[in-house]
Protein backbone atom coordinates (compact mmCIF):
# COMPACT_ATOMS: atom_id res chain seq x y z
CA UNK A 1 0.00 0.00 0.00
CA UNK A 2 2.97 2.30 0.48
CA UNK A 3 4.06 2.70 -3.10
CA UNK A 4 2.23 5.62 -4.60
CA UNK A 5 1.45 4.95 -8.20
CA UNK A 6 -0.65 7.82 -9.41
CA UNK A 7 -2.49 6.65 -12.46
CA UNK A 8 -1.56 8.83 -15.39
CA UNK A 9 -5.11 9.79 -16.23
CA UNK A 10 -6.08 10.82 -12.68
CA UNK A 11 -3.37 12.79 -10.89
CA UNK A 12 -5.50 13.90 -7.92
CA UNK A 13 -6.34 10.55 -6.41
CA UNK A 14 -6.66 10.18 -2.64
CA UNK A 15 -6.10 7.32 -0.20
CA UNK A 16 -9.78 6.60 0.33
CA UNK A 17 -9.26 2.86 0.46
CA UNK A 18 -6.76 3.11 3.27
CA UNK A 19 -9.06 5.38 5.27
CA UNK A 20 -12.03 3.11 4.73
CA UNK A 21 -9.95 0.12 5.86
CA UNK A 22 -8.72 1.81 9.03
CA UNK A 23 -12.20 3.16 9.81
CA UNK A 24 -13.73 -0.28 9.46
CA UNK A 25 -11.03 -1.85 11.62
CA UNK A 26 -11.58 0.85 14.25
CA UNK A 27 -15.33 0.21 14.25
CA UNK A 28 -14.56 -3.44 14.90
CA UNK A 29 -12.32 -2.44 17.80
CA UNK A 30 -15.22 -0.54 19.37
CA UNK A 31 -17.38 -3.66 19.17
CA UNK A 32 -14.53 -5.78 20.54
CA UNK A 33 -14.03 -3.40 23.45
CA UNK A 34 -17.63 -3.17 24.55
CA UNK A 35 -19.97 -5.02 22.27
CA UNK A 36 -20.33 -8.25 24.18
CA UNK A 37 -24.03 -7.71 24.70
CA UNK A 38 -24.79 -6.52 21.20
CA UNK A 39 -25.53 -9.79 19.47
CA UNK A 40 -27.44 -11.05 22.47
CA UNK A 41 -29.89 -8.20 22.14
CA UNK A 42 -29.97 -8.58 18.34
CA UNK A 43 -30.96 -12.18 18.92
CA UNK A 44 -34.18 -11.06 20.55
CA UNK A 45 -35.35 -9.35 17.37
CA UNK A 46 -38.30 -10.98 15.62
CA UNK A 47 -37.33 -13.73 13.19
CA UNK A 48 -33.87 -14.24 14.66
CA UNK A 49 -35.51 -15.48 17.83
CA UNK A 50 -36.26 -18.81 16.20
CA UNK A 51 -32.54 -19.48 15.74
CA UNK A 52 -31.30 -18.39 19.16
CA UNK A 53 -31.83 -20.79 22.07
CA UNK A 54 -34.26 -19.00 24.35
CA UNK A 55 -32.92 -20.57 27.54
CA UNK A 56 -29.48 -19.33 26.51
CA UNK A 57 -27.82 -22.73 26.16
CA UNK A 58 -26.30 -23.70 22.82
CA UNK A 59 -26.19 -27.44 22.28
CA UNK A 60 -22.98 -28.96 20.92
CA UNK A 61 -23.20 -32.46 19.52
CA UNK A 62 -20.58 -34.98 20.65
CA UNK A 63 -22.22 -38.23 19.56
CA UNK A 64 -24.68 -39.25 16.88
CA UNK A 65 -27.43 -39.75 19.42
CA UNK A 66 -28.16 -38.58 22.94
CA UNK A 67 -28.66 -40.87 25.92
CA UNK A 68 -32.30 -41.06 26.96
CA UNK A 69 -33.69 -41.07 30.48
CA UNK A 70 -37.21 -42.10 31.39
CA UNK A 71 -36.85 -42.16 35.18
CA UNK A 72 -36.56 -45.96 35.31
CA UNK A 73 -33.72 -48.44 34.72
CA UNK A 74 -31.19 -45.76 35.46
CA UNK A 75 -28.13 -46.34 37.65
CA UNK A 76 -25.20 -44.28 38.82
CA UNK A 77 -22.03 -46.30 39.46
CA UNK A 78 -19.25 -45.09 41.72
CA UNK A 79 -16.20 -47.28 41.33
CA UNK A 80 -12.43 -47.45 40.86
CA UNK A 81 -10.16 -46.60 43.80
CA UNK A 82 -12.88 -46.66 46.47
CA UNK A 83 -13.41 -48.83 49.53
CA UNK A 84 -17.16 -48.90 49.01
CA UNK A 85 -18.17 -49.20 45.32
CA UNK A 86 -21.80 -48.16 44.92
CA UNK A 87 -24.69 -48.36 42.52
CA UNK A 88 -27.43 -45.79 43.07
CA UNK A 89 -30.88 -45.61 41.53
CA UNK A 90 -32.47 -42.27 40.71
CA UNK A 91 -34.64 -42.69 43.83
CA UNK A 92 -31.50 -43.24 45.92
CA UNK A 93 -30.11 -40.03 44.51
CA UNK A 94 -33.22 -38.04 45.38
CA UNK A 95 -33.05 -39.35 48.97
CA UNK A 96 -29.64 -37.69 49.48
CA UNK A 97 -29.27 -34.14 50.82
CA UNK A 98 -29.84 -31.79 47.87
CA UNK A 99 -27.73 -28.75 47.12
CA UNK A 100 -29.56 -25.77 45.63
CA UNK A 101 -27.16 -23.26 44.09
CA UNK A 102 -27.23 -20.41 41.58
CA UNK A 103 -24.23 -19.85 39.30
CA UNK A 104 -23.43 -18.13 35.99
CA UNK A 105 -22.75 -20.67 33.25
CA UNK A 106 -19.88 -19.72 30.94
CA UNK A 107 -18.95 -21.41 27.69
CA UNK A 108 -15.43 -21.32 26.29
CA UNK A 109 -16.89 -20.24 22.94
CA UNK A 110 -17.88 -16.92 24.47
CA UNK A 111 -21.53 -17.16 25.52
CA UNK A 112 -22.91 -17.29 29.03
CA UNK A 113 -26.16 -17.81 30.86
CA UNK A 114 -26.61 -15.67 33.94
CA UNK A 115 -27.88 -17.02 37.26
CA UNK A 116 -28.69 -20.65 36.49
CA UNK A 117 -30.24 -22.53 39.42
CA UNK A 118 -28.93 -26.06 39.83
CA UNK A 119 -30.27 -28.72 42.26
CA UNK A 120 -28.80 -32.10 43.12
CA UNK A 121 -26.41 -33.87 45.49
CA UNK A 122 -22.90 -32.57 46.04
CA UNK A 123 -20.09 -34.64 44.52
CA UNK A 124 -18.29 -34.47 47.88
CA UNK A 125 -21.27 -36.20 49.50
CA UNK A 126 -21.10 -39.10 47.01
CA UNK A 127 -17.33 -39.34 47.43
CA UNK A 128 -17.66 -39.52 51.22
CA UNK A 129 -20.13 -42.37 50.85
CA UNK A 130 -17.87 -44.29 48.47
CA UNK A 131 -14.73 -43.64 50.60
CA UNK A 132 -11.83 -43.01 48.16
CA UNK A 133 -8.67 -45.02 48.81
CA UNK A 134 -5.49 -43.18 49.76
CA UNK A 135 -4.12 -43.80 46.28
CA UNK A 136 -7.02 -41.97 44.58
CA UNK A 137 -5.95 -38.60 43.17
CA UNK A 138 -8.59 -37.75 40.59
CA UNK A 139 -12.21 -38.36 39.62
CA UNK A 140 -13.51 -39.16 36.13
CA UNK A 141 -17.12 -38.61 35.12
CA UNK A 142 -18.47 -40.78 32.28
CA UNK A 143 -21.61 -39.99 30.33
CA UNK A 144 -24.02 -42.72 29.28
CA UNK A 145 -22.91 -42.32 25.64
CA UNK A 146 -19.40 -43.40 26.62
CA UNK A 147 -17.93 -40.51 24.62
CA UNK A 148 -18.37 -37.39 26.71
CA UNK A 149 -16.03 -37.87 29.67
CA UNK A 150 -14.07 -35.47 31.83
CA UNK A 151 -12.18 -35.36 35.09
CA UNK A 152 -11.27 -33.29 38.12
CA UNK A 153 -8.57 -33.67 40.71
CA UNK A 154 -9.94 -35.12 43.94
CA UNK A 155 -9.47 -31.76 45.66
CA UNK A 156 -11.43 -29.94 42.95
CA UNK A 157 -14.22 -32.52 43.04
CA UNK A 158 -14.58 -32.11 46.81
CA UNK A 159 -15.21 -28.37 46.65
CA UNK A 160 -18.55 -27.41 48.22
CA UNK A 161 -20.00 -26.00 45.00
CA UNK A 162 -19.37 -29.00 42.74
CA UNK A 163 -22.61 -30.88 42.31
CA UNK A 164 -24.42 -33.40 40.14
CA UNK A 165 -27.58 -31.59 39.10
CA UNK A 166 -30.81 -33.26 38.04
CA UNK A 167 -32.83 -30.03 38.05
CA UNK A 168 -32.20 -26.74 36.26
CA UNK A 169 -34.08 -23.53 37.06
CA UNK A 170 -36.60 -25.48 39.12
CA UNK A 171 -37.45 -28.09 36.46
CA UNK A 172 -36.04 -31.54 35.68
CA UNK A 173 -33.13 -31.52 33.22
CA UNK A 174 -34.17 -32.02 29.61
CA UNK A 175 -32.41 -34.58 27.42
CA UNK A 176 -30.34 -31.86 25.68
CA UNK A 177 -29.28 -30.43 29.04
CA UNK A 178 -28.04 -33.82 30.25
CA UNK A 179 -30.85 -35.77 31.93
CA UNK A 180 -30.74 -37.51 34.32
CA UNK A 181 -27.58 -36.06 35.83
CA UNK A 182 -24.96 -33.50 34.84
CA UNK A 183 -21.83 -32.26 36.51
CA UNK A 184 -21.79 -28.60 37.56
CA UNK A 185 -18.43 -26.93 38.27
CA UNK A 186 -19.11 -23.22 38.73
CA UNK A 187 -15.46 -22.16 38.76
CA UNK A 188 -14.66 -23.74 35.39
CA UNK A 189 -15.79 -23.36 31.78
CA UNK A 190 -18.91 -25.32 30.86
CA UNK A 191 -17.19 -27.97 28.75
CA UNK A 192 -15.95 -29.66 31.93
CA UNK A 193 -19.54 -30.25 33.03
CA UNK A 194 -20.22 -33.75 31.71
CA UNK A 195 -23.85 -34.43 30.83
CA UNK A 196 -25.78 -37.73 31.12
CA UNK A 197 -23.40 -38.85 33.92
CA UNK A 198 -23.86 -42.53 34.86
CA UNK A 199 -20.40 -43.46 36.15
CA UNK A 200 -17.93 -41.87 38.56
CA UNK A 201 -14.45 -43.42 38.67
CA UNK A 202 -11.72 -42.67 41.20
CA UNK A 203 -8.34 -42.84 39.48
CA UNK A 204 -4.65 -42.63 40.48
CA UNK A 205 -4.07 -39.69 38.10
CA UNK A 206 -6.23 -37.24 36.18
CA UNK A 207 -7.51 -38.51 32.82
CA UNK A 208 -7.78 -36.32 29.73
CA UNK A 209 -11.40 -35.54 28.92
CA UNK A 210 -13.30 -35.32 25.65
CA UNK A 211 -12.82 -31.62 24.98
CA UNK A 212 -9.25 -31.61 26.27
CA UNK A 213 -8.39 -34.24 23.67
CA UNK A 214 -9.64 -31.64 21.18
CA UNK A 215 -7.37 -28.86 22.34
CA UNK A 216 -9.06 -27.30 25.35
CA UNK A 217 -7.31 -26.84 28.68
CA UNK A 218 -7.55 -29.57 31.35
CA UNK A 219 -7.55 -26.84 33.97
CA UNK A 220 -10.60 -24.98 32.72
CA UNK A 221 -10.61 -22.35 35.46
CA UNK A 222 -12.58 -19.23 34.61
CA UNK A 223 -10.47 -16.12 34.26
Amino acid at each position, binding site marked *: *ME*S*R*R*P*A*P*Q*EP*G*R*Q*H*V*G*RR*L*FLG*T*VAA*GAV*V*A*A*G*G*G*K*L*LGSLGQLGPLKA*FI*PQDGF*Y*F*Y*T*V*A*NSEPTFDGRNWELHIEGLVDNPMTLTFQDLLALPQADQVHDY*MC*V*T*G*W*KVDRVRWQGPLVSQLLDMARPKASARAVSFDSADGIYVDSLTLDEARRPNVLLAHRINGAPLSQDRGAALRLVIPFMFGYKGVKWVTRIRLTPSQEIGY*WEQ*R*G*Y*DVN*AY*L*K
Partner: protein
Amino acid sequence: MTSTPTSSRGAAPDATVERFNRSERWMHWAFAAPLLLAMATGLSLFFPAAEKLFGSREIIRVGHWISGFAAILLPLLVVAVGDRGRLRLDAAEIDLWSSGDRVWLRTWLSRRTGLEDELPHAGRFNAGQKANAVLTAAALLWLGLTGVVLFPPLHPPFWLLENSRTLHNLTWVLLLPLVAGHVFLSAVYGPTRPGLSGIFSGRVPLAWLRRHHPLDPVAPPPP
Protein backbone atom coordinates in the same frame (compact mmCIF):
# COMPACT_ATOMS: atom_id res chain seq x y z
CA MET B 1 -8.99 -19.08 -33.51
CA THR B 2 -9.26 -16.09 -31.24
CA SER B 3 -6.59 -13.62 -32.04
CA THR B 4 -5.78 -11.29 -29.23
CA PRO B 5 -4.36 -8.05 -30.46
CA THR B 6 -3.31 -5.93 -27.54
CA SER B 7 -3.28 -2.55 -29.17
CA SER B 8 -4.19 -2.93 -32.79
CA ARG B 9 -7.05 -1.07 -34.31
CA GLY B 10 -10.07 -2.98 -35.47
CA ALA B 11 -9.77 -5.83 -32.96
CA ALA B 12 -11.93 -8.85 -33.67
CA PRO B 13 -15.25 -8.64 -31.84
CA ASP B 14 -14.45 -11.76 -29.85
CA ALA B 15 -10.94 -10.69 -28.93
CA THR B 16 -9.84 -11.28 -25.36
CA VAL B 17 -7.17 -9.65 -23.27
CA GLU B 18 -5.39 -10.59 -20.03
CA ARG B 19 -6.92 -8.76 -17.06
CA PHE B 20 -5.46 -10.73 -14.13
CA ASN B 21 -2.15 -12.55 -14.18
CA ARG B 22 -1.49 -15.77 -12.31
CA SER B 23 -0.47 -14.09 -9.03
CA GLU B 24 -3.61 -11.96 -8.98
CA ARG B 25 -5.84 -14.96 -9.64
CA TRP B 26 -4.10 -17.01 -6.97
CA MET B 27 -4.39 -14.11 -4.53
CA HIS B 28 -8.13 -13.95 -5.11
CA TRP B 29 -8.71 -17.67 -4.62
CA ALA B 30 -6.18 -17.98 -1.78
CA PHE B 31 -8.61 -16.20 0.52
CA ALA B 32 -11.90 -16.58 -1.36
CA ALA B 33 -12.01 -20.39 -1.35
CA PRO B 34 -11.10 -20.91 2.33
CA LEU B 35 -13.26 -17.94 3.33
CA LEU B 36 -16.33 -19.47 1.72
CA LEU B 37 -15.59 -22.77 3.45
CA ALA B 38 -15.01 -21.01 6.78
CA MET B 39 -18.27 -19.06 6.44
CA ALA B 40 -20.20 -22.26 5.69
CA THR B 41 -18.67 -24.28 8.51
CA GLY B 42 -19.04 -21.29 10.83
CA LEU B 43 -22.76 -21.17 10.12
CA SER B 44 -23.00 -24.87 10.93
CA LEU B 45 -21.18 -24.31 14.21
CA PHE B 46 -23.62 -21.58 15.17
CA PHE B 47 -26.81 -23.49 14.39
CA PRO B 48 -27.11 -26.83 16.19
CA ALA B 49 -29.69 -28.07 13.66
CA ALA B 50 -27.14 -27.65 10.86
CA GLU B 51 -24.37 -29.53 12.64
CA LYS B 52 -26.63 -32.53 13.18
CA LEU B 53 -26.79 -32.88 9.40
CA PHE B 54 -23.11 -33.77 9.50
CA GLY B 55 -23.59 -36.24 12.35
CA SER B 56 -21.09 -34.57 14.60
CA ARG B 57 -19.59 -31.23 15.38
CA GLU B 58 -16.12 -32.70 15.09
CA ILE B 59 -15.60 -32.56 11.34
CA ILE B 60 -17.09 -29.08 11.03
CA ARG B 61 -14.96 -27.70 13.84
CA VAL B 62 -11.72 -29.00 12.38
CA GLY B 63 -12.79 -27.86 8.91
CA HIS B 64 -13.46 -24.40 10.32
CA TRP B 65 -10.03 -24.19 11.92
CA ILE B 66 -8.24 -25.31 8.77
CA SER B 67 -10.17 -23.04 6.42
CA GLY B 68 -9.93 -20.10 8.81
CA PHE B 69 -6.17 -20.28 9.14
CA ALA B 70 -5.86 -20.93 5.39
CA ALA B 71 -7.79 -17.75 4.56
CA ILE B 72 -5.12 -15.75 6.41
CA LEU B 73 -1.98 -17.73 5.59
CA LEU B 74 -2.49 -18.60 1.92
CA PRO B 75 -2.67 -14.93 0.80
CA LEU B 76 0.58 -14.28 2.69
CA LEU B 77 2.10 -17.21 0.82
CA VAL B 78 0.99 -15.72 -2.51
CA VAL B 79 2.60 -12.41 -1.51
CA ALA B 80 5.79 -14.29 -0.61
CA VAL B 81 6.15 -16.23 -3.85
CA GLY B 82 4.02 -14.25 -6.31
CA ASP B 83 4.38 -11.20 -8.53
CA ARG B 84 4.58 -8.59 -5.79
CA GLY B 85 4.88 -5.69 -8.23
CA ARG B 86 1.55 -6.50 -9.77
CA LEU B 87 -0.11 -7.14 -6.38
CA ARG B 88 1.23 -3.81 -5.15
CA LEU B 89 -0.20 -2.09 -8.20
CA ASP B 90 -3.60 -3.63 -7.46
CA ALA B 91 -3.39 -2.57 -3.81
CA ALA B 92 -2.60 1.00 -4.91
CA GLU B 93 -5.49 0.91 -7.39
CA ILE B 94 -7.82 -0.15 -4.59
CA ASP B 95 -6.43 2.46 -2.20
CA LEU B 96 -6.38 5.48 -4.49
CA TRP B 97 -9.76 6.90 -5.41
CA SER B 98 -10.32 9.54 -8.07
CA SER B 99 -13.11 12.06 -7.93
CA GLY B 100 -14.78 9.87 -10.55
CA ASP B 101 -14.71 6.96 -8.10
CA ARG B 102 -16.56 9.01 -5.50
CA VAL B 103 -19.17 10.00 -8.06
CA TRP B 104 -19.37 6.40 -9.20
CA LEU B 105 -20.12 5.15 -5.69
CA ARG B 106 -22.62 7.91 -4.95
CA THR B 107 -24.42 7.30 -8.22
CA TRP B 108 -24.45 3.56 -7.72
CA LEU B 109 -25.75 3.78 -4.16
CA SER B 110 -28.53 6.19 -5.09
CA ARG B 111 -29.34 5.08 -8.59
CA ARG B 112 -32.92 4.80 -9.66
CA THR B 113 -32.29 3.77 -13.26
CA GLY B 114 -30.08 1.16 -14.87
CA LEU B 115 -26.49 0.51 -13.90
CA GLU B 116 -25.03 1.01 -17.30
CA ASP B 117 -24.85 4.51 -18.58
CA GLU B 118 -24.96 6.96 -15.70
CA LEU B 119 -21.76 5.83 -14.05
CA PRO B 120 -18.46 7.60 -14.62
CA HIS B 121 -15.71 5.66 -16.36
CA ALA B 122 -13.98 3.25 -14.02
CA GLY B 123 -10.31 2.39 -13.81
CA ARG B 124 -8.85 -1.05 -13.17
CA PHE B 125 -11.42 -1.44 -10.42
CA ASN B 126 -14.63 0.54 -10.05
CA ALA B 127 -15.50 2.15 -6.73
CA GLY B 128 -17.82 -0.69 -5.77
CA GLN B 129 -15.07 -3.23 -6.33
CA LYS B 130 -12.65 -1.08 -4.34
CA ALA B 131 -15.06 -0.75 -1.42
CA ASN B 132 -15.76 -4.49 -1.53
CA ALA B 133 -12.05 -5.31 -1.48
CA VAL B 134 -11.32 -2.94 1.41
CA LEU B 135 -14.27 -4.10 3.53
CA THR B 136 -13.50 -7.76 2.86
CA ALA B 137 -9.89 -7.21 3.89
CA ALA B 138 -11.00 -5.53 7.14
CA ALA B 139 -13.43 -8.38 7.78
CA LEU B 140 -10.69 -10.95 7.20
CA LEU B 141 -8.46 -9.16 9.69
CA TRP B 142 -11.13 -9.18 12.40
CA LEU B 143 -12.28 -12.72 11.68
CA GLY B 144 -8.65 -13.82 11.94
CA LEU B 145 -7.89 -11.95 15.17
CA THR B 146 -11.07 -12.99 16.95
CA GLY B 147 -10.79 -16.49 15.53
CA VAL B 148 -7.36 -16.91 17.09
CA VAL B 149 -8.74 -15.76 20.46
CA LEU B 150 -11.47 -18.40 20.20
CA PHE B 151 -9.00 -21.10 19.14
CA PRO B 152 -9.04 -23.69 21.97
CA PRO B 153 -5.45 -23.82 23.25
CA LEU B 154 -5.38 -20.16 24.29
CA HIS B 155 -7.76 -20.20 27.29
CA PRO B 156 -8.14 -16.40 27.57
CA PRO B 157 -10.34 -14.54 30.08
CA PHE B 158 -14.07 -14.80 29.51
CA TRP B 159 -14.67 -11.14 28.63
CA LEU B 160 -12.23 -11.49 25.74
CA LEU B 161 -13.97 -14.65 24.53
CA GLU B 162 -17.36 -12.98 24.78
CA ASN B 163 -16.38 -9.88 22.81
CA SER B 164 -14.48 -11.96 20.27
CA ARG B 165 -17.51 -14.16 19.73
CA THR B 166 -19.70 -11.10 19.21
CA LEU B 167 -17.34 -9.50 16.71
CA HIS B 168 -16.65 -12.81 14.95
CA ASN B 169 -20.36 -13.46 14.46
CA LEU B 170 -21.21 -9.85 13.62
CA THR B 171 -18.46 -9.77 10.99
CA TRP B 172 -19.93 -12.89 9.42
CA VAL B 173 -23.33 -11.21 9.22
CA LEU B 174 -21.91 -8.02 7.67
CA LEU B 175 -19.66 -9.94 5.28
CA LEU B 176 -22.48 -12.07 3.89
CA PRO B 177 -24.14 -9.33 1.76
CA LEU B 178 -20.72 -8.34 0.39
CA VAL B 179 -19.95 -11.91 -0.65
CA ALA B 180 -23.45 -12.48 -2.00
CA GLY B 181 -23.37 -9.20 -3.93
CA HIS B 182 -19.93 -9.98 -5.32
CA VAL B 183 -21.00 -13.45 -6.47
CA PHE B 184 -24.18 -12.03 -7.99
CA LEU B 185 -22.42 -9.30 -9.97
CA SER B 186 -19.56 -11.52 -11.09
CA ALA B 187 -21.42 -14.71 -11.92
CA VAL B 188 -25.12 -13.91 -12.39
CA TYR B 189 -25.82 -10.33 -13.45
CA GLY B 190 -25.75 -10.18 -17.26
CA PRO B 191 -23.90 -6.93 -18.00
CA THR B 192 -20.98 -7.66 -15.64
CA ARG B 193 -20.80 -11.45 -15.99
CA PRO B 194 -18.51 -11.43 -19.05
CA GLY B 195 -15.69 -10.40 -16.72
CA LEU B 196 -15.98 -13.63 -14.74
CA SER B 197 -13.49 -15.50 -16.91
CA GLY B 198 -10.84 -13.03 -15.75
CA ILE B 199 -10.59 -14.67 -12.35
CA PHE B 200 -10.33 -18.19 -13.85
CA SER B 201 -8.28 -17.93 -17.04
CA GLY B 202 -7.15 -14.36 -16.57
CA ARG B 203 -8.60 -13.28 -19.91
CA VAL B 204 -11.72 -11.19 -20.48
CA PRO B 205 -13.42 -9.98 -23.64
CA LEU B 206 -11.63 -6.86 -24.81
CA ALA B 207 -14.91 -5.14 -25.67
CA TRP B 208 -16.23 -5.75 -22.17
CA LEU B 209 -13.05 -4.43 -20.54
CA ARG B 210 -13.11 -1.25 -22.62
CA ARG B 211 -16.72 -0.65 -21.69
CA HIS B 212 -16.50 -1.42 -17.97
CA HIS B 213 -12.92 -0.46 -17.11
CA PRO B 214 -11.89 2.02 -19.78
CA LEU B 215 -9.34 3.72 -17.54
CA ASP B 216 -7.53 0.53 -16.49
CA PRO B 217 -3.81 1.37 -16.77
CA VAL B 218 -3.10 -2.30 -17.49
CA ALA B 219 -5.67 -2.52 -20.29
CA PRO B 220 -4.62 -1.93 -23.88
CA PRO B 221 -5.25 1.61 -25.06
CA PRO B 222 -8.50 2.14 -26.95
CA PRO B 223 -8.33 1.98 -30.73
